[in-house]
């Protein structure tokens, strides 16, 4: 298992990187963390003629947080985003999801933006971008454009990047005030790709559920965003407990919106079952996190 030969480029500035990408066009592939790309190369599932290693490009490894959003640069490692307390304060779903991305050692090298550009339908961060109504900044030698999550993911392992372009950063907006979030998934083995994963956000206003949304991985070609408000609106929340919200009904509503496929890991009907069960659990956890008496969850490791 050795990668096929390629021409290697190691630009040190964004302009230089964009110049190389423009020059090599369709034959070029950006190398960031490489935790998905290098296995693909090692298994010879792809053989790009040019690799453009952006790890030496200055200024791309930032995690910038302001009052309303978190913006992650193209070479910021998953670990750096996961451990960033300011980012967690503004958008807790980042850390909640990143804990489930592969293993800590993979997260040390893998990048959050790279996992978005890879557009794996099992990739947790695709659901985070979708649920936060986030966007990516796509840059080429001829300028930049911001693309919403809904337009960015085109199909399995396919995003809307064109030849000569790269994703420079991704922005994850904060949820509205009074919103709690959770990310839950089921995988065969710890750290493995999820059979089904659910990112959930529940907004509580004046002690009652006012909005509930979820985004799903591994049950469709792209992250699927579902509004579940109708099933649970009006459920009362007090002291961290939610009564009167029918989370199971929300699970059934979600099940009616998905069309999962079978593969070697799971039948389609088991995935559909997971959508129902995990939706109910994730919404309940998100609602508890939205309640004002909730104490912030601690990281499990380190």
């Amino acid at each position: 298992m050795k990668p096929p030969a390629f021409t290697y480029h190691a630009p040190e500035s964004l302009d230089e990187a964009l110049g190389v990408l423009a020059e090599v066009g369709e034959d070029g592939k950006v190398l960031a963390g490489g935790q998905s790309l290098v296995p693909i190369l090692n298994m010879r599932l792809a053989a790009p003629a040019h690799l453009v290693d952006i790890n030496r490009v200055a200024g791309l490894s930032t995690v910038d947080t302001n009052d309303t959003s978190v913006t992650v640069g193209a070479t910021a490692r998953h670990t750096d985003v996961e451990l960033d307390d300011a980012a967690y304060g503004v958008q807790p779903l980042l850390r909640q999801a990143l804990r489930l991305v592969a293993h800590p050692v993979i997260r040390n090298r893998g990048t959050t933006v790279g996992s978005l550009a890879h557009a794996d339908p099992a990739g947790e961060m695709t659901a985070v971008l979708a649920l936060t109504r986030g966007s990516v900044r796509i840059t080429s030698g001829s300028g930049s454009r911001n693309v919403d999550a809904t337009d960015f993911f085109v199909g399995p392992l396919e995003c809307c990047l064109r030849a000569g372009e790269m994703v420079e950063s991704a922005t994850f907006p904060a949820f509205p005030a009074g919103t709690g979030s959770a990310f839950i998934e089921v995988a065969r083995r710890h750290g493995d790709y999820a059979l089904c994963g659910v990112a959930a956000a529940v907004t509580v206003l004046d002690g009652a559920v006012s909005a509930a949304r979820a985004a799903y991985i591994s049950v469709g070609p792209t992250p699927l965003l579902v509004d579940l408000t109708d099933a649970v609106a009006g459920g009362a929340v007090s002291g961290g407990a939610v009564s009167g919200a029918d989370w199971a009904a929300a699970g059934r509503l979600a099940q009616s919106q998905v069309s999962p496929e079978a593969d070697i890991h799971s039948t389609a009907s088991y995935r559909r079952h997971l959508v129902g069960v995990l939706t109910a659990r994730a919404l309940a956890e998100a609602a508890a996190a939205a309640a004002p008496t909730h104490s912030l969850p601690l990281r499990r490791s380190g």
Partner: protein
Amino acid sequence: MSEQHRSVTLTVNGRTHQFDVPVRRLLSDAIRHDVGLTGTHVGCEHGVCGACTVLMDGRPVRSCLLFAVSADGAAITTVEGLAAADGTRHPVQQAFTECHALQCGFCTPGFLTTIAAALEDNSHPSEEQAEEIISGNLCRCTGYQNIKAAVLRAAELKRAAG
């Protein structure tokens, strides 16, 4: 077309090595073939088994998922770099010995480097955290119980040593 080569400088276990490699040379192969340190084992070569884990600038990474050229200029610690200069075992190595945490030994270098780095961040792991630390490494011999015990014992030894 002849294959592209580049010069790479790596500081491995404190010693600087400079050599030319094909740009597609994996860091794991560079460490074994170019630097000549064969303690870093190559198992799956797609990031699943963890046997090739080394520390790059202090952080554990999969050396089979990095090109040597991408690591140019980095400081690498392999399993050979864990013990003290006088041969005194690293607390993790001592704990593996005491707890019988290996059988065939193939996976052991990756466990040792991974655990050594994790204990730098968390000197008092719980049982659950010990499981999390080793969750990315495969061992087909031990059943993991003794490795988990070794994580906790290594933390004890490390704390005792100050």
